[in-house]
Structures are given as C-alpha cells and as structure tokens.
C-alpha cells in the first residue's frame, strides 16, 4: 500500500515540476550551505592540525604574558598584545634551562621579529625578519632545500647572513639561484646562505615561507628588534612534556612572576584553536540551518496551497475509498519527498561547491555533515508536512467535492 501511495505522491510532484522545484529550492539552499560551510570549518581544522604536526609535536613554547588564560588572549586582545610584547624573556634563560636540563631538552631557540626593506637587483619588498638561533632548524623541523643554515658562530658574531623562506626567495630572485648572492636589507649587504623547504602557509596572513631568517644577534644589532618574543624548546620525547614544562617554569620563576610568561605545547595550542574553529563551524552550520527551517516553511506553505487547490481531488479520492490515513500519508510523503529530493540536490550543489572552494581554501565534506543535513531536511519535510496533510485528511468528502 505504501508503495502505491509513494507512486501517487511522485505522480503529483511530477505534475507540477516547476512548482516542485521552486518548493525544493529552500531545502536545496539550506542543505547546500550547511554542508558547504561545515565543510569549510572542518577543512580548516584538519588543515591547521596538519600544519601543527609538520612543526613537530615535541615542542614547548614560552611566551610573555598569558595569551591563553582568562582575562587575556581572545577575551581581551589589547591587553594580550601588550603582555606578549613585554620584554621579559632573555636569551640567558634559554641557555640556563638547556644547560641545567640536558636530560630533558634536545635543543632550543629564542626568536624575535623585525621588519626591513629587502632588495635584490631592482626588486624591492617589505619583509618580515625572523631572528632565530641555528637550533631553530632542528626545533621546528625546518630544513634547507639548497644551501645551508647559518651556524653557531655566525649567529653569535652577528654576521650579515640570511636564510630565505621559499616564497620570499621566489619573489626576490625569481629564477636566479640566490645562494651566495648579496641581498640588501635596509641598504646593507647580506649573504644568502640557503633557501628553506616549503612549509605551506597560512592563507592570507604571513607565513613561515615568506620570512627572511636572520641570526638572532644580527637582528638585535642591525635592526629595530627590542625583545625576544618566544623561546622554543625541543623536548627529547613526548613523555617528558610535563616534566619539561615544570622545569621551564621552575627556572623562569627564579627571575619572573607567574603572570609574566606562559609555557604551552602544540596540543594545548591546537586544542584552543580547534575549540574556536569547532564553535565557528557550529555557528556557521547553525546560521545555515536557519535557511533549512525557512525551506521547511516554504514546503509547508506550498503544501497548504496545494491542499486547497486540490480540495476536489481529495474529495474524489475519499469518495473512491481513500481513508483519511491514506490521504494523510500521500501528502506527508509528498512533502517528505520534496524535502529529500531537495536535500539530495543540495548535497550535489555542496559537493560541486567544495570542489571549487578547494582551489582557494581547505574544505572537506564529512560524512557526519552529510548525514546531519540529510536527516534534518527529511525531518523538516515531515514536520512541516504534517499540518497540510492533516488538513487534507480531515476534509469531508461531500464538502470537498462541492468545492469550486
């Protein structure tokens, strides 16, 4: 019986193709945008996770202030910014920690940031200078593709040498091999020692690939850098992360206050970012879900019109032996089918959309998002189909047949 009723429902959908399509449009847009937006959200999440994994998982960061704690970081941007630029970290701390805890730490580096105008030939570019120590290559898992990193002597002597990120190398040198070429930074000559492998960058914002890496001492002596913005440690094994955090805190608390600095590892940072992105994804999905509800209301609206328009037909069906339940089912199935077909088309739209978006932005469609959107659209059809279907089922056959 249900098969016969489904056949009836399909027939009446097909009899009004244009109207059926317009009715579905709301659900198409709703499902399409829910799946696409959550796809962007989850794509972003896995992209960032991958980036972190590429930077190494045995790494501990020390930064000034408390950017991830309460009252700082994301809840108070300005305060957080002021705190992270406080010149509390010293190179001596790094050396002391590494010296006192050889059993825990492999190596470590201090970092600082500056800005300079870079010029090669006639190409000029404003570049971010990243002052690091030679250990950076090991700590952050960053190797050269050609040439080499500067060594310890070059760093402590504040030699005028640089290592280029692949993007900035390409921008300044083009097809010319940059190794051992002279690059002008704020008008002074620097020798290019090496070019780094590609790390993949943050879209839009600055990326590790576009930095010019200079020895930390050089940065402090030749440029306007005034403070160390982070200490990065490589811990010997992941099991030692907790012990390492404690060791760093103990050492630093000898000279600094508790609020002056924070120690965190990749997982902490990753968790925070994932939380934010998760909330963002849910928020985007929620906003898109509103359009699904609107789509559902559209279906209800059309089905109510359809019931009125087909009053005589309903009366006839009842006269010929359709029970109220069969009429109810027919209209309910019609609404659900509109919604399901709309949902399927919406999924196709989302798949196509994500293929296009992928060219600019990481996006992946998850099975969960598909199931959720599809389930919700079916539910929307059923829920918003009930009122019109009940109206149809309740019609008296005599009244309905008399309806003009």
């Amino acid at each position: 019986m249900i098969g016969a009723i489904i056949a009836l429902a399909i027939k009446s959908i097909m009899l009004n193709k244009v109207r059926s399509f317009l009715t579905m449009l709301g659900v198409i847009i709703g499902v399409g945008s829910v799946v696409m937006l959550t796809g962007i959200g989850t794509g972003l999440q896995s992209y960032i996770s991958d980036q972190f994994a590429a930077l190494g998982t045995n790494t501990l960061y020390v930064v000034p202030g408390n950017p991830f704690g309460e009252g700082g970081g994301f809840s108070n941007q300005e305060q957080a910014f002021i705190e992270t630029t406080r010149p509390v970290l010293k190179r001596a701390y790094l050396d002391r920690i590494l010296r006192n805890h050889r059993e825990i730490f492999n190596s470590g580096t201090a970092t600082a940031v500056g800005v300079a105008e870079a010029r090669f030939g006639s190409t000029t570019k404003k570049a971010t200078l990243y002052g690091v120590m030679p250990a950076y290559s090991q700590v952050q898992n960053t190797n050269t593709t050609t040439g080499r990193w500067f060594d310890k002597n070059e760093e402590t002597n504040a030699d005028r040498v640089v290592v280029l990120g692949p993007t900035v190398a390409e921008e300044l040198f083009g097809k010319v091999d940059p190794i051992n070429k002279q690059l002008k930074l704020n008008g002074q000559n620097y020798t290019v020692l090496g070019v780094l492998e590609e790390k993949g960058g943050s879209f839009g914002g600055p990326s590790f690939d576009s930095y010019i890496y200079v020895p930390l001492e050089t940065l402090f002596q030749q440029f306007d850098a005034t403070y160390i913005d982070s200490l990065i440690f490589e811990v010997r094994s992941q099991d030692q992360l907790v012990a390492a955090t404690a060791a760093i805190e103990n050492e630093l608390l000898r000279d600094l206050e508790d609020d002056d600095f924070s120690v965190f590892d990749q997982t902490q940072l990753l968790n925070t970012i994932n939380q934010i992105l998760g909330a963002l994804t849910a928020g985007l999905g929620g906003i898109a879900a509103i359009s699904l509800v609107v789509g559902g209301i559209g279906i209800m609206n059309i089905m109510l019109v359809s019931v009125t328009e087909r009053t005589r037909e309903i009366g006839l069906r009842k006269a010929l032996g359709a029970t109220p339940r069969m009429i109810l089912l027919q209209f309910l199935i019609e609404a659900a089918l509109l919604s399901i077909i709309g949902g399927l088309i919406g999924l196709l739209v989302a798949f196509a959309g994500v293929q296009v978006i992928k060219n600019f932005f990481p996006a992946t469609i998850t099975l969960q998002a598909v199931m959720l959107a599809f389930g919700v659209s079916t539910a929307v059809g059923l829920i918003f189909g009930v009122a019109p279907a009940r109206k149809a089922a309740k019609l008296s056959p005599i009244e309905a047949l008399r309806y003009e």
Partner: protein
Amino acid sequence: MLLQLKNVSKYYSLGSSTIKALDDISLEVAEGEFLSVMGPSGSGKSTFLQVASMLAEPTHGQIILKGTDVTDYDEIERAHLRNQEIGFVFQQFNLLARTSALDNVALPLVYARQSHSVQVERAKEMLDRVGLGDRLHNTPAQLSGGQQQRVAIARALVNNPSIIFADEPTGNLDSKSGKEIQNLLSELHRSGKTIIMVTHEENVAAIADRQIVFRDGKIISDSKKKKSKRSNNK
C-alpha cells in the same frame, strides 16, 4: 434486498434553525433496479444520494446494505465500503487532471490495494467496455465531455460495485453526448447493474425503470414503469 433505508432523516443546523434535508424516508432498492431520483433543488435528492452512497451519515434511521446494517460504520469502514460496493458518476466528471484515462480508471483499485498489473488489466477492460479502448493514455483535456464521462463511468465500474450512484450524469453535456451516456447507463442496467441516478430532466429520468420524486425532504411519489424487462439476469 440490496439497499434498505429505514426511517432515515438528515438534519443540518443553520444558525439557530434546523433544516430537515431528509425527513423520515424509507426506501428499498432491489438488485438490478435502475432508479431515477427527481425533485426541485433543495428537495433533498442530493442529500439522499450522499446518505445512501455512504458519503454522509444519517441523523436518524438505519441503512442496510446487502443485509448488513452499515449505519454506524466509522470513517474507515465507510471508505472501504464505498471503495468495494459503490461506484460514483458525477456531473463534473471529477477526473484527475493531467492524468491518463487508464490511471484515472485505476484509482479505486489503488485504494483497493490491487497490484499494478491487476490495476492496468482491469482499467483497460473497463475502458474497452465504455468504448474508449483506444484512448487509454489520453488525459481528460484531450477528451470530449462525453468521453470524459465515459472514463468516469469506467472508473465507477472498475471495482465491480453493487450500486452505481450517478449525480446528474448528463447535466454537463450537450444533448448528443448526453444521449450516449444515457444509452451507456441503460446498457449497464440491462447487464444487471443496480443504478441510482439523480436528475432533473424528465427525459433522462425516463430511461430508468423506477422513478422517485422528492419534495421537502420526503418522497412524494414512487412509480415503477410497466415495462417488460428485456433481461432479468444479474
């Protein structure tokens, strides 16, 4: 006796007053009878048709179909009864628009839960019987009024019902098509079908072998034609 109405009344309330659309009528219809129902508008003939065809419930009285008291049947039982025992022919044809003659005729079989192959087979058979075997896939818009009414008659016959109720079956047709439909109904009657037809046209009523006339909710005349039946089989 195929259909018995015992002291049946149907009241409608209109504001504070009550309208007695049917006022204590009793009637028996035998199998194979062709009954015409006449009367001015508002006389109760339409209400009689609705009550007798199980579309409406009487306010008082009893309805007995094939020896079973069906007065207190609920909505679902009535739907099954209409599907199995009653065929409807309407003045407005009431065919589903943009739906083939075949699908229109098969509709009662859908609600009778017949398989698709049975639906097609029976519907074809009925359309053949009304002379539209070559118009199976035409939609109502592609058929003349007379042809549409023949499709409707095929639909009324498709479940092999006990009684066919026809409400002004020629009221919406030109005289030639009307004549064709009258002939078709007579032919069905001769083949043993029981038909109850409401009409306001004397000449149409004349094809029936029994005529009843309503006025003010009561039957004021019930006359059988003294016409020899050409066939007396079912």
